[in-house]
């Protein structure tokens, strides 16, 4: 593989680009701020501060309301009479009870469909 010969053009453009950047700095000097710069900046800061303050107040109100509801629900849970228990068995116990019946329901269903003799 042959190496490419050094391109004199690329060095020329490199220098030209450096000169252009230097000229760009001269063409864009640091601008003088207008007299309204500081008053407008403080207006913005104040606007943001008041927005943050309102948001903070809303957040505090929401947190207080949530805490009050939690306490209320806790008290209700503690002092109100407890509800009657609907399920006394666990799921496994209920399943075991279901399977321990004497007549297998599948077989019974087959007899009924064939019109054959049934247990009744």
């Amino acid at each position: 593989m042959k190496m490419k010969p050094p391109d004199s053009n690329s060095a020329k453009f490199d220098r030209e680009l450096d000169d252009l950047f230097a000229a760009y700095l001269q063409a864009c000097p640091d601008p003088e701020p207008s007299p309204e710069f500081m008053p407008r900046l403080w207006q913005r800061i104040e606007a943001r501060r008041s927005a943050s303050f309102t948001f903070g107040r809303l957040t505090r109100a929401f947190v207080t309301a949530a805490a009050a509801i939690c306490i209320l629900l806790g008290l209700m849970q503690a002092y109100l009479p407890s509800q009657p228990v609907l399920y006394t068995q666990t799921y496994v116990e209920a399943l075991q009870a279901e399977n321990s019946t004497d007549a297998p329901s599948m077989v019974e269903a087959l007899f009924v469909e064939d019109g054959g003799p049934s247990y009744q």
Partner: protein
Amino acid sequence: MLVDATLIERARNGDDAAFNEIVVASRRRVLGTIARLIGRREDVEDVGQQVFLRLYLSLDQLRTPDVFDPWLYRLTVNAAYDYLRRQRRRNEMRMADLPEQVVMSADAAAGGKREHEEAEKARTREYVQGLLASVSEADRSLLILKEVEGLSLKELEKVYHVKENALKVRLFRARQRVLKALSAQREGAMEAGSQR
């Protein structure tokens, strides 16, 4: 460092007068950097105020006054970057795209030495911005901070929180792209000249 460390410390503790002094001391430099990054003079102050607003809101996150300068540069670059992203949709016709003859006649019409100088500066601005349009906004700001603002790689490392080697690679690639755009423009101008 343009701003005194005790002033920064006072501003961090909520002293508005100290913050005011920080803004007064650093606003020209910040506005200058923004002007070179965004290239639109009419919006420079607006972006500058955005920078100082962000500074005000985030001053308590500054770990130590020593890193204030890179911190401020970072805020400046981010605000300029946000502005450029908002402006991306605007597809304006640039002076750099105009045929040279039109630019020459615009110069001539300006008349007077000062006006001529101003027109020349405007042409340089537009031309360099046209060249920088060949790279992404992120690479463009990196190139400007390095090549125009004169920040060292060490300083850029602090601004971008990126390793020096990675920055070198990014800068090299960005510069190559700008060089390619420059040579294409020069060759185009030469071809146009030879056809006349």
